[in-house]
């Protein structure tokens, strides 16, 4: 691994962690969302490095382009950037941080002691994750999950519409019905 590579990956990792921390700490939900977008973009680059270009661009399209935009949209729509008031649960903050630290330590220990795969990243063939291969796998081996996911999406769409629907005044509805 070259020095450039280490610098490159280290830089990306730091950006990812810092953006995540910033998302965590920022008081404004809009900034949180933006930092999260930055995090996603960084991860997308890492995906490229891990030989997953399709996933990388899907990540940008779906997460950054759709999901986070929806977040921004809702935050702006509701005007819910900031909350007032204090932490109402006693000990929540301390406990959370303590547990988080233990968790990280555990995971790191796990990586050190349990994962034999402290292996170098593998060089992948050009078409390891080509759209064709992903498509073939998805429509043959994983056809059932694919259909299930499609169904989940459909039901989520309907669910979202039903949840946010405001009952229209009867007059308007009647006029529309006549037309």
């Amino acid at each position, binding site marked *: 691994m070259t020095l450039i590579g*280490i610098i490159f*990956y280290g830089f990306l990792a730091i950006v*990812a*962690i810092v953006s*995540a921390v910033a*998302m*965590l700490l920022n008081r404004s*939900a809009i900034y*949180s*969302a933006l930092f*999260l977008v930055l995090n996603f973009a960084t*991860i997308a680059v*890492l*995906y490229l490095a*891990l030989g*997953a270009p399709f*996933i990388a661009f*899907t990540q940008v399209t*779906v*997460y950054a382009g759709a*999901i986070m935009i*929806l*977040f921004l949209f*809702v935050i702006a729509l*509701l005007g*819910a950037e900031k*909350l007032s008031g204090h*932490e*109402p*649960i006693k000990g*929540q903050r301390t406990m*959370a941080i303590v*547990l*988080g630290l233990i*968790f*990280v330590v555990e*995971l*790191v220990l796990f*990586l050190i002691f349990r*994962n034999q*795969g*402290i*292996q*170098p*990243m*593998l060089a*992948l063939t050009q078409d*390891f994750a080509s759209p064709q*291969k*992903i498509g073939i*796998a*998805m429509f043959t081996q994983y056809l059932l*999950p*694919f259909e299930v*996911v499609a169904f*989940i999406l459909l039901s*989520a769409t309907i*669910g*979202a519409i039903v949840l*946010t629907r405001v009952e229209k005044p009867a007059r308007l509805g009647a006029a529309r019905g006549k037309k």
Partner: protein
Amino acid sequence: MPTSFFLALSAIMFVLGILGVLLRRNALVIFMSLELMFNAANLAFVTFANQYQLLTGQIFVFFIMAVAAAEVAVGLALMVAIFRNKGSVDIDQLNSLKG
């Protein structure tokens, strides 16, 4: 670059997501923290896909993304509905079910 580098990054991001859920009161930010956790998991998946030379990990990530999109659609719709009722997205105000 060892694959455990990516796994460690994934782990840290996951814990940060958990902390986000535990520490923030804004339901939208909690939601974002969930997305961050998803992302951490995705990163682990892609890393393993790389390590084991299997496409399955990537396809799984794809499914996770689709489900996450669905989840966000419903979740945000819920947020809007909650906001309409409560006038706030403070998750600690949604404690009507307390014992």
